[in-house]
């Protein structure tokens, strides 16, 4: 049977690639600290020795559009081209191509449908920075096959937070029930408090540092009850108008399991938004 080698939750800051590769006067003052934190985070995946990556993210109106918007979608294809013209334009992200694992994707689709999630699927999916940012930070060689899973945190009406947690629990069960002897890392990215296109955007910190502090505590301690007691679709408007991306962190808390304390916790307070990085080892910390 497959083993969940690591569960990883992260923000996906599209400016990391540019900041970390910039030199001289173009290199921002926070770049070295950021790179050091990312390299330590990357090591938590490397030492889990994964064979396959299940990658949870959210399309930012690149391929998925309002005429046909899925809530949860699994990519099932042999390859995934990645990054888009407007991400190249705004963030300097490189074009990429990742391989897919169709067998695991098919298993997740068939058994996810049977478990009560009416998952949409795509056989030709171009993925965006919500998935390529963690590839760049955690596996820059991009040498492992992936199964991308997209969630709708972007175009209301959205599923409620509890549904994201339930999907996370289900993804964990689906991976663990895959009858193939592979080591699978489940990686998901979202946001802490974030404002995009609104009055509170691009401040000195994230728009709601108090929310960010609580969110990091919920995730690090696996406090799903505390998190679900406070977080609703309505409440997520308060910390910032793009904070519904926090529901992808809640999904990852569902993958890790209630009460599961993260084995690696780190954060970095940047302008505009706070970065946060978490790794769990469900089967013990690798040697």
């Amino acid at each position, binding site marked *: 049977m497959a083993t969940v080698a690591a569960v990883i939750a992260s923000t996906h800051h599209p400016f990391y690639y540019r900041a970390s590769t910039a030199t001289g006067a173009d290199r921002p003052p926070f770049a070295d600290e950021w790179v050091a934190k990312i390299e330590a985070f990357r090591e938590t995946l490397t030492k889990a020795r994964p064979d396959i990556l299940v990658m949870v993210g959210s399309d*930012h*109106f690149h391929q998925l559009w*309002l005429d046909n918007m899925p809530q949860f979608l699994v990519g099932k294809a042999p390859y995934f081209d990645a990054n888009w013209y407007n991400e190249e334009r*705004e963030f300097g992200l490189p074009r990429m191509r990742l391989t897919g694992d169709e067998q695991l994707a098919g298993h997740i689709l068939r058994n996810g449908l049977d478990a009560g999630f009416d998952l949409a699927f795509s056989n030709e999916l171009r993925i965006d920075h919500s998935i390529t940012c963690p590839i760049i930070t955690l596996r820059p060689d991009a040498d492992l096959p992936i199964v991308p899973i997209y969630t709708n945190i972007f175009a209301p009406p959205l599923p409620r937070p509890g549904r994201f947690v339930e999907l996370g629990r289900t993804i964990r069960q689906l991976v663990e029930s895959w009858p193939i002897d592979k080591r699978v890392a489940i990686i998901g990215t979202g946001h802490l408090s974030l404002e*995009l*296109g*609104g*009055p509170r955007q691009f401040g000195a910190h994230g728009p709601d540092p108090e929310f960010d502090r609580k969110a990091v505590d919920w995730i690090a301690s696996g406090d799903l009850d505390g998190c679900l007691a406070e977080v609703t679709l309505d409440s997520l*408007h308060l910390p910032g108008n793009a904070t519904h991306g926090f529901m992808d962190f809640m999904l990852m808390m569902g993958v890790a399991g209630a009460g599961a304390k993260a084995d690696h916790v780190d954060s970095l307070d940047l302008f505009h938004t706070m970065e946060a990085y978490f790794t769990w080892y469900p089967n013990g910390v690798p040697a």
Partner: protein
Amino acid sequence: MSKYLLNKFLYTIDRDPELVERYREDPAGTVAWWEQEMANEILNCAVAEKSTWLAFTDDERKALREQDHVALFGLGAHPFLTLTLFIAMFERDHDPLEYQKAYGRVLQQHYTLPYPDIAT
């Protein structure tokens, strides 16, 4: 109100480098052309299979012609789409992050929570 159509305009312009430049240089002409030729194209269908009913309201058309991001925010356009396109058109005229900060400051003069509903 046709928030969907506002978003469709922002989305289809933003993903096409030539249309980004065309909208920057000729806002009124681009909006008129787009509403006439593109508004009713269903993006994943053959061109002949058009919709027949999509049109801007006067306020929406005016906000797009005037490239008025404050008005677009008030009309419930998706803030991510507006921001991304406007950065593409106008960031180049400013120092780093200056445009993004000014964009937020002017919204602060008009809006507090709860923000206009963006549900389509």
